[in-house]
């Protein structure tokens, strides 16, 4: 799998459209024709914020079509609020595409995509790719409340079967999306993106049933391009994502710290040692 960093660049874009799809959830459309050609499912971008900020913001690339990409994000802190304050016509520079992305080319035809919260931003492109290949795609999607289940209808319109869960029971299953996953017919393959506790539960479920599962991890980034080793995760040294990693300090241990931004953000569940 080629590293996206070899094709990534600082991309100057312009805001084409901006909508608040739910309270404090922003969808920004950006003009980036060259980027559309390079983006693969699961890639992410580092948005370079206007004004003085100590770091960019890592965001999943939500849509990529024609000359437009989009970024979907929650207003969670000062940096995302600055990003959310951008208006149509303003400039936004991003570093993209980054990361390895999901492998959507497997032979399996019954796929479960598991998304939690803002993780939804990274799974539209893989859903579209899998549907185009003729797969059955079930979207297991969990959020705190019904209002926070943003863009669910978009996934349905694309052809996904929706299985929704909310923490407060205001829509769909009342409880964790991973509990909902366990109650349904097992898929042949899983793609997941969301908070770490959700990914751990998906990982446990998948390994128990020997279902191949790819997890797109969340971790606090420094540079986002592999230069600072701030965003690591323990993986098996012989993993596909760590073909030439040095041994770890613990004698006899086969576990190494891989960079989520560079070797990931997508890892096979069975290769993680977290």
């Amino acid at each position, binding site marked *: 799998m080629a590293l996206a*960093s*070899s094709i*990534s*660049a*600082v991309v100057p874009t312009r805001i084409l459209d901006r909508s608040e799809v739910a309270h404090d959830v922003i969808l920004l459309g950006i003009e980036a024709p060259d980027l559309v050609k390079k983006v693969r499912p699961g890639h992410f971008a580092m948005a*370079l*914020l206007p004004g*003085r*900020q*100590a*770091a*960019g913001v890592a965001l999943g690339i939500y849509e990529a079509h024609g000359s437009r990409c989009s970024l979907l994000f929650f207003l969670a*802190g*000062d*940096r995302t609020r600055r990003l959310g304050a951008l208006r149509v016509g303003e400039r936004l*520079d991003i*570093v993209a595409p980054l990361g390895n992305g999901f492998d959507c080319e497997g032979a399996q035809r019954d796929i479960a995509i598991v998304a939690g919260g803002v993780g939804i931003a990274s799974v539209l492109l893989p859903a579209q790719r899998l549907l185009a290949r003729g797969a059955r795609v079930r979207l297991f999607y969990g959020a705190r409340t019904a209002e926070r289940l943003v863009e669910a209808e978009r996934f349905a319109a694309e052809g996904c079967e929706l299985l929704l869960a909310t923490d407060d029971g205001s829509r769909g299953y009342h409880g964790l999306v991973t509990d909902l996953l366990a109650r349904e017919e097992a898929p042949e393959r899983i793609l997941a993106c969301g908070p770490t506790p959700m990914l751990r539960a998906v990982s446990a479920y998948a390994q128990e049933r020997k279902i191949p599962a790819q997890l797109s991890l969340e*971790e*606090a*980034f*420094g*540079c*986002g*391009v*592999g*230069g*600072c*080793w*701030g*965003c*690591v*995760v323990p993986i098996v040294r012989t993993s596909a994502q760590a073909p*030439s990693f*040095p*041994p*770890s*300090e*613990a004698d006899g241990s086969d*576990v*190494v*710290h891989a960079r989520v931004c*560079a070797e990931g953000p997508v890892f096979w569940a069975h290769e993680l040692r977290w």
Partner: protein
Amino acid sequence: MVDSAKLDLSARIGSLVLPYPTVGLSGCYGSGAEFAPYVDLARLGAVVLKSVTRRPRMGNPTPRIVHTPAGMLNAIGLQNPGIDWYLQHDVAKFAQTPCATIGSVAGFSVDDYAYVCERLAARNEIAAIELNISCPNVAHEGETFACDPDLTARVVRAARDTTDKPLIAKLSPNVSDIATIARSAVAAGADALAVVNTVRGMAIDIVQRKPRLGNVTGGLSGPAIRPIAVLAVYEVARAVAVPIVGQGGIETASDALEFILAGASAVGIGTANFADPRAPITILDGIIEYMVQRNVRSLRELVGAANTGFANINQVEGDEG
């Protein structure tokens, strides 16, 4: 008006002459290659590589990064493959870097520093050695060296005995009198000083009621620490007559010029690369613009120009030359 193409932007670090004063900093800049898609590395003075130790290190648990207002806490914990693997697999690649590559050595004993320094400095790909005696993120030991003038001297002297290549000692801001440490490092043979490493700090998650960093404490970088770093450069430049690589929260050319006017011959760019990987180039271009507008032909005219007690390194170099 001076012609921008004829400006002398060079900075000297011992026998090493950097064509530009801007340096990508250790731990922030990978091996340089990670940033090659975004900047022309040939327009950097040098890249300081990530620190390497005698043995491989897994580094600290995550989270290793916490964003703070106007800054960033990190606690990576010197994750690195160890000097054996590094020499065998990584160093040869640095020959392709289109600017000077400065090796960074970290350790837990005086002997560690000497051992790793000797092996690393022996390689042609490495133009100079930075002694990272000030990492705040490795269980008590890492920063001890830069907080004690005697230990600083012992590390520098032991490293000095292993190589003739330029040696840079990276100092900590977490000391009561940085000038004393600086004098000690220079007396022991340091050719230059990197001023400063990160400021110790921490952040607490009030919902979970626990520290945000996996390592509990970390090092603060970014614009939040810039005035602290400018003062440190100012004080060190009055105490010793060796080149200083000023660093700590530099984001723009005006930030870089503050360090230069305080007494830095070169400037390091670390965290700013995370906000915009083009930062080293926009900073260099801004320095050039400043010089052209003010008819300054050589950057050396600016070094220490705001520091009345500056221990004039240009004069010292002239005497030696």
